[in-house]
Each structure stands twice: as structure tokens, then as C-alpha cells.
């Protein structure tokens, strides 16, 4: 009979990291288990050990410190969605987490989990990339911080070393007057994952010219897609329909869209064009705060 699955329930980050360092790829970190359970049941993964981090204290905080929204790795999607702290600082983060799956999944799935899984069809990553969030991780060599835009490397692949775990995400609170939205576009049931998800962040000068424009496209390619050169072209220009169309077309041209049951590559390209435009339009119109 094969070895039974071993379960570790460390009570400190250091202890968890030590187990990971010792067992290597054979161990999988588990928190809400919404993704891991599916992968395990379908036998897409066959870990020898699970490292459940649910008993580690200090990873469930939601706070704003030094102009940053800080979300602990064990905060659930539902907690982000309902948090007055999140709603009061960066409401688009709460909106995006609130659009994930259904309430049962959101009650279990965690902030750290959705980052570490790096599923191309998750909603929150695009928002974090657009907002220039930073992912805090800890491993045998101590702590480090990775920009969200560099954290997601490929399908189910992140910048994490095998002995590192996500301990939290920090999101800079945008300056007053910034509008930020997340558009989740589903092609099948309303509980489906996005065909494309677009996060848009816009701040305008008093004269209507663009002070800040950031756009990240999720679910359309292996990782969230953001094109800073395209964003930079808009800075200082009046945000009119032509400019928005230029940005949307540039995104549609640059995202190397994938094909799945939610839409073909052709369709996704067209949806990137539509939803980047809509995201910029609605971010510009979003109530300034």
C-alpha cells in the first residue's frame, strides 16, 4: 500500500518553511483547499504531504498602514469582500474578491491561496497587478517582497521558491481622485470563471488629461497582462474615445490570447478590446475618492 498522505499543521511560519525545505516538491501548502481539493481529486497532483497553514497566527489581518492596504495570506475572499477597511480604502479589491465563484467558495478560498495557485482564470491577480501590489513571501532565506507583476510566471507557476510561502499582499492606496474598476466577463454560467477580467485604474488631471492609467487583463493569457509602454502613451493626453480605443486596440494586439471552453483566442482578443475600453471608461467615470 502506498504511503498515506502526511499532514503537517505548523503553528509558525518558520516551522512551515522548515517542513517545506525538508520535503521539497513532495509537500503542498494548503489553506482554504478550494483549488487543491479539485487538483487532488482529479489526480493532477499527488503530494506526499500537506502543510496546512491554518494554525499559523498573524496571517488574518486586514489593515491600512503607511498608505498601504495589507491583506494577510489567510484572509478569506469573503472577508476581503465584506471588509469595511478594504471598502474604505480600495473598494475595487473588495469588488473583485466578491466576484469570485459563489459565497461557499469565497468563505474558504484565501488571499494567499489565490496568489500561490496562479490560475490564469482567477479574478484577484489582475487587480493586484493593476494596483502595483507587492506580494510578501517568507522562506528559508528569510522574507522578500515580489511585485505582483513579477509574481505570476506562467500557468500555475509563480516566483515562489519551493520553500517559500505567501504571507500577505500589500496594495498601495491610490491617490484621491483615482477611479478603479474590475470587470469580470463570463461567457457561461454566472458562477463561471472569467473569459476575460479587466482591471482598470484611471486618474485625471483637472483639465481632463490623464495623470495615471493602468490596465491589467486577466484570464486571457497565462498570467495577468499589463503593458506599461501602452499605458505611458496615454499620460498627459486628454482621455477621449480615440485615446481609449488606441489603448484597447494596443492591448488586443499585444495579449497573446489563449483558447479554452470559455472562448477561442480570436474571441478573447475581441473581448480584450471591448473590456479594456469599458474598464477605462468606467474607471474614469467611477466616483472619485
Amino acid at each position: 500500500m502506498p504511503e498515506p498522505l502526511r499532514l503537517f499543521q505548523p503553528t509558525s511560519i518558520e516551522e512551515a518553511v522548515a517542513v517545506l525545505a525538508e520535503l521539497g516538491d513532495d509537500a503542498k501548502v494548503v489553506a482554504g483547499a478550494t483549488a487543491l481539493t479539485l487538483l487532488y481529486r482529479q489526480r493532477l497532483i499527488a503530494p506526499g504531504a500537506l502543510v496546512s497553514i491554518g494554525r499559523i497566527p498573524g496571517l488574518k489581518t486586514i489593515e491600512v498602514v503607511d498608505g498601504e492596504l495589507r491583506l494577510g495570506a489567510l484572509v478569506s475572499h469573503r472577508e476581503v469582500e465584506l471588509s469595511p477597511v478594504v471598502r474604505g480604502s480600495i473598494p475595487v479589491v473588495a469588488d473583485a474578491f466578491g466576484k469570485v465563484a459563489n459565497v461557499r467558495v469565497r468563505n474558504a478560498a484565501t488571499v494567499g491561496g489565490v496568489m500561490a495557485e496562479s490560475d490564469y482564470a482567477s479574478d484577484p491577480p489582475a487587480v493586484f497587478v493593476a494596483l502595483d501590489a507587492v506580494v510578501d513571501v517568507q522562506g528559508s532565506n528569510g522574507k522578500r517582497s515580489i511585485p505582483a507583476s513579477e509574481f505570476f510566471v506562467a500557468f500555475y507557476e509563480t516566483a515562489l521558491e519551493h520553500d517559500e510561502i505567501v504571507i500577505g499582499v500589500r496594495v498601495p492606496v491610490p491617490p484621491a481622485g483615482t477611479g478603479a474598476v474590475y470587470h469580470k466577463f463570463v461567457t457561461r454560467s454566472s458562477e463561471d470563471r472569467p473569459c476575460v477580467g479587466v482591471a482598470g485604474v484611471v486618474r485625471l488631471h483637472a483639465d481632463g488629461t490623464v495623470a495615471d492609467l493602468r490596465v491589467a487583463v486577466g484570464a486571457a493569457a497565462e498570467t495577468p497582462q499589463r503593458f506599461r509602454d501602452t499605458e505611458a502613451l496615454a499620460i498627459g493626453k486628454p482621455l477621449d474615445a480615440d485615446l481609449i480605443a488606441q489603448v484597447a486596440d494596443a492591448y488586443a494586439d499585444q495579449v497573446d490570447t489563449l483558447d479554452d471552453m470559455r472562448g477561442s483566442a480570436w474571441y478573447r482578443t475581441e473581448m480584450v478590446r471591448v473590456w479594456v475600453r469599458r474598464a477605462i471608461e468606467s474607471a474614469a467615470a467611477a466616483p472619485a475618492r
Partner: protein
Amino acid sequence: MSGVVKGLPGTWADTHRGTAQPGQPGMMDARDRVTGKVDYVINMTLPGMLHAMVLRSTAPAARIVRIDTEKARQVPGVVTVLTGRDIVSRTDVRSHFGPVFRDQPVLAVDRVRFVGEAVVAVAAVDRDAARAALDLVEVEYEELPPVFTFDEALAEDAALVHPEPPRAGATFADIIVHSQAGSNVCNSFTLRKGNIDEGFAQADHVFEDTFTCPAVQHVPLETHCTVADARTSDIVVHTTSQIPFMVRSQLAEVFNLPASRVRVVVHTLGGGYGGKCYPNTEPLTAMLSFVSGRPVKLHLTREEEFTAITRHAMRITLKTGLRADGKVIARKSTCHFNTGAYADIGPRLIKMGGIGTGGPMSIPHVWIDSYAVYTNLPPAGAYRGYGVSQAAWAYETQIEMIAQRLGRDPYELRKKNLLVNGETNATGEIMDDSHWHELLDEVAGKIGWTWPQVPQRIGNKVRAKGLSCIIKGTVTPSASTSMVKMNEDGSLNVMTSSVEMGQGLQTAMAILAAERLSMPVGKVLVSTPDTAFTPYDQQTSSSRSTHSMGMAVTRACGGIADQLLAQASEALEIAVADLELRDGKVQAKGAPDKSVGYAALVQRQKGGNLLATGEYITGGGLDPVTGQGKAAVHWHQAAGAAEVEVDLETGKVDVIAYEAAVYAGRVVNPVQAELQAEGNLAFGLGHALFEEMVYDNGQLQNGNLGDYMICSFEDMPERVGVSTLEEPVLNEIHGIGETGLPPVMPAIGNAVFHATGVRITDAPITAEKVLRGLRQLETARLAAAAVMAAAGTGTAR
């Protein structure tokens, strides 16, 4: 035409009467269901019970070269490891089963025919041991050429899914078998009415169009589960079945036992939708118990459920001829149903699906060829709608395509053709209780149908409405029997083998019994099936139970009523004719003070209880060549109207309103009637917009609920109206469990067309298909404009 009219125009039932009649529940076990108190087979354990797990084929078509189970047998806790060869080598059991053809092996014998087919089964003390053992089984396959599509399966040189002609066996009376040895045609059905060539010759317009639907899955909340106990010389199975007596007859055949010694017990089900009609997990679980000598439980995982049974993918070509005045006079339909690797009930379904393509119209010349086609995909069987959803998708879409080509109002074109009393349907039956005009008018009125449909533009979105109207039969001939006993306190036990699967069967039966005997519903208990104790019922499917079992129960209660009246007549010294049943008592008509309660009457009879039986047996049948005769004891009738909003930039369709109208004849419980209509809408909406089983080389790509989408509450329209039509003269119950489903897909498709001009004929109507259609229309418009401009320039020069 005179003399045939039985039914009169109906009256609309008030479906918002709250909780039915005073004292009647919406659904008796609703609270227990939602609070987790209902006992499903899943929860059951028996002393010493083993847990079974199954190794399934990874190849769509292959010869099994070798199976090595040696290491698996060594795993601690493993009691039995079984292969198809082990079963074939026994002389005391049969290795194959199936409700029409005995083509399905309990475990694959030498050959696999679809990805997911059971190859090796293990029974062990727990699931972990069973799973560990399966991991150690080695199977070597030699792949054979598979066939998946109709074109592949029907090609002249196609590889045969079943090289040997499958063995036919005892089956239902209504099934017509025309198998074609040496081909992948599992069964065919033909219907010939009038003279089709003459019909087309007389037609002023002839249109031919092809429609397709993909396979979909039932997705019951409760997956298939069986607990089998063959420790003694009898076999007892507790199982998730909609047809316990079919399970019994099949197990009796497999194990060479008298039917009396096979006991099939069915608890309440967590949904069925047709997926639990025919033997599935039962033969294998019973075989494991028989071989191991221990009780065994097999509970399918969600992933296994997806390939256990499916709804037929179909392709239907309709050729329809009309006179200049819009009257349809000829229709030729060619229907292919993909029945997968094993026949299951496909041979019967193609009959109802084929007949269905005649539609709710009186067409003098009809020619139908309907085929069940074997392929190397998971078996397809019964599914809510029973082939008629696919048929309606074809004919209710085509009628609108024809209307558009002829520039006519599709509502008026339907009205020109809908059946009325005295006319005949496809099977040549004279309609005597027709309500299609009333049903269509109801939904058209409530949705606010206008012609022409001018799409309402709101920003990037457009709105429009669509209609549909359908006919569906119910299995005929068929039989239901029941037994009732009135106890010493005047309470009543109803024994029936109809299955409660969430549709509210028990509540409906309790209401009907209580009505017949004028007693409170709360004093009636309706049984669940146990073939050792409850009398025969043919099947809980085909929207037949409230009608058929309702009649049987009502008649049995009539037998009790006669005994009560006889006892009361003696006790009160009043003639039976002058007595009536009223609120738990027999009383003198017009003199309520002269009465005696049921309890006293039961005690007076001195038998301990009053017993009575009732039965309801229908006759009919079709000519095996012409398909003419009696296909249904009566015809189910429904209409639907949808209003959709389509995003012109994405193609995404939202159904914002839906009106359902269904002929119920007599509504037993308004709450449940309305919920059935809503359930049908949820099913149809998913089929219309996104449900689809996607295969790659026979391997299902979305066999879990993360990848396979069903309709969620968020997808339901904001506005849903349900109208149920009653006919007080005949006062005959018509089943509505499926009736409201077939209109949904075409109503939505037709609304999408009116909103966008995009006509989708291959379901589902995905956002991407709609967007591609919009782009094609735009390209065509620009091309036409360019031609116009060029022509304009030419004139100027």
C-alpha cells in the same frame, strides 16, 4: 370531425394560491430536505459493508490485452478484485445487461468502448484501500479505431462499436426494434403518414435545414449510489433508481433468480432527471456482493457520474413544405441520436424524439427516419424531455426561419398550423383535447408579443422576444398499481412504487388520496418503493406519475370508500346512495348529525384495517413500419416566450423574462406545479446558452462542476411567469414534469434572432457564436452597401 371533441377550452389555474388548499403543504418533506434530515442511500451502512471503487477505461476503443490484478489483491483490506473475464468465467451469473439490448457488460469483457467504462472493480474495507488497490492494477490496451461523430459512425467502412449483434431481451411493450446488423445503427424508427412525395409536390415552398444539440449531463445533486447485499441466497439492493422494477428484472436475469428473490429498495432521490432510469451501478455492486459474500456500497464520484449516463447529442434535418397560404403540408425529418457505446434506452428514445419532430401541427404528409447510433462515447439515455427538447429545438427554430424567409409573423404562421380538436398529429391520432392555441396566446400576451419585432436598443444592448410551442407524448402503453390500507384510527397508508426524487410525488399522492377520501393530508403516509412489498409501477419518468399513479391511488382509495360506505350504511341504517364522505366521516347527505367516523368504521369491520388496490393500465402502440397508431394516452402541451438582452459587442445573451404556459388538465398542487415550470426553465436556459459536454478523442474535457456549467440562480430571468391551464370538464391530470422544458431553448433562440438577426442552429447559443454571427451580418451589410454604392456610381456615369 364532430363527435371527437372531448375537451373544451380551459381555464387558467391560479398558481399563486400560496400553499395549495388550506392544510395542504407545498411539499411535505421540503423542510426535511433542506435541513439534511432526508435519508439518502449515500448515508446507508450495513454491518461488514465493503466499499467499491472502479478502474475505468482510458481508451475510447481498445482490445484489453492483459489485466494484472495480482498486486491489487495483496493490498491490506482488499476483499475482492473483479474483472469482466472473472464474471464471464462463472456459470451462475450472466455478464451483460441492458433494458432493451443486453449489450452492456457488468465489467468490460476483452474490449472497452468508451473512456470511463468500468474495467476492474475492487471491494475493500474502506475507500482508501480500494483506491490503493486500483492504483496497482495494470491494464494493457491495444487501441482500436474509434468512432465519435455521426459521419464517422455511419461511414461505409466504419469500425463497429459492437461487432457482434447485441442480444435483445424482454423489454417494454411499446419498444419497436429495427437494429441493423453490420452497422453502428443501434436502432431505427420509421413513421410514414400520407404520401410524402405528393406532399412536397403540392407545396409552394420547401425548406430544408439542419439543427444540432450537444450531449449534456443530468447533474443530479446526488450521484448514483447502490448498497447491495447478496449474503443470503436473495439479493437486496438499496439504490438510486427511478425504475425499481426494471432494476429487479435485470438483476433477476443476471443472477438467475426469481423476481421475488430480488428486492429493490429505493429511498428518496436527490434528483434524477432521467439519469437514474436504467440499471447502472446496480449490477456491478450486486456482483461484488455476490462474489465477496459481504454487503457492498458503490457511490459514484462526480467525475464518474459525468460518464455514467448522458443526454443524446442529436442532429436533425427537417425538410418542410408549405402551401402559399402558410399551411404546412409535408415534413420529412431525418434524426440521428448519438447513443454512445451502449444502447441503454436509446432504442425507445429515438421513437419519441422522432415523432416529436412532427410538432404540434396537423401535417397530412409526414416521413420520419430516426436513428440511435452507437459511438465510442459514454452511453446516452433518458433525460428530462426525452428527445423532444432536441426535436423542438429543430422544428420551433425552423418554423421561425420559414416565417422570416416568407416575411410572415411567426406567431401567425404557428396559429395557421397549430393542432385543433379533430385534426391528427404525426402518428395519425385524432386530437380531442387540444389547447395549443390557448397556450401560445397566453405566453404571447404575457410577454407582449408584437410583430414585427423591433429590437429595443439600450446602449450597446438590444432586447427582443421569441416564442415557441411544443407537443410531447408520454409512455404508452403503461401500467401503475397501488395498494392502500386504512388503519384503526382512520389514518391511511398508501403503498406505491413511484419514486420521490424531489419532484413532490409523495405530496401529490397524499393530496389525491386525501381528496378522494375527504380526510386531512397529514393523516396520509405515502411509501417509498420496495419491490418486496409495494406493488408494481412501470417507471417514474415520462411525466406520468401524477397522472398514472394518481389514477391508481385514487382508484384504490375508491375501494376503501366503498368499504366505508358499506360499513356506515349498516351502522346508520341509511342506504349507501344517501351517504357521503366528508371530513373523515361518513355522513347522511343533508343530515350531517347522522355520521360515523372512519376510525369507528374500520373497527366495526373487525379486520384490523381496510385494504384495497387500484390500477391504471393504458393501451396503445404503433405500427412498426408506418409509426401510425397510438403513441400516447394523451398529449402534453406547452408554450414558452422569452425576452432576451444581447450585448452587441460581446454576443452575450441574458434572458431577462420568461413566460411558461403548460396544459395541466387539473392542477393537484399549485406550488409544485409552478416549481416544476421554474425547474424546466433552469434546465432549458442552461441548454440554450452554455451546457455542453466537450470531448477530445473521446475523453471528456469538462467532467466536473468547475468546468461544466449548469444554470445558477443568478442566471434565471428577473421576470418569470407560469401559467397552468386546467380543463374542468375532463378534469384529467396531465404530467408537467418535463412538458415545460422543450419550449425553452427555441424560445430563447428565436428571441436572440429577433434581437440581433443572428440565427444559431447548433446549440448552445454561446456568446462567441452570436458575436461571429453579428460580424458576418456586418460584413454582408458592408458588402451590400458597397454594391449599392458601385451601382449608384454606375448610374451617375
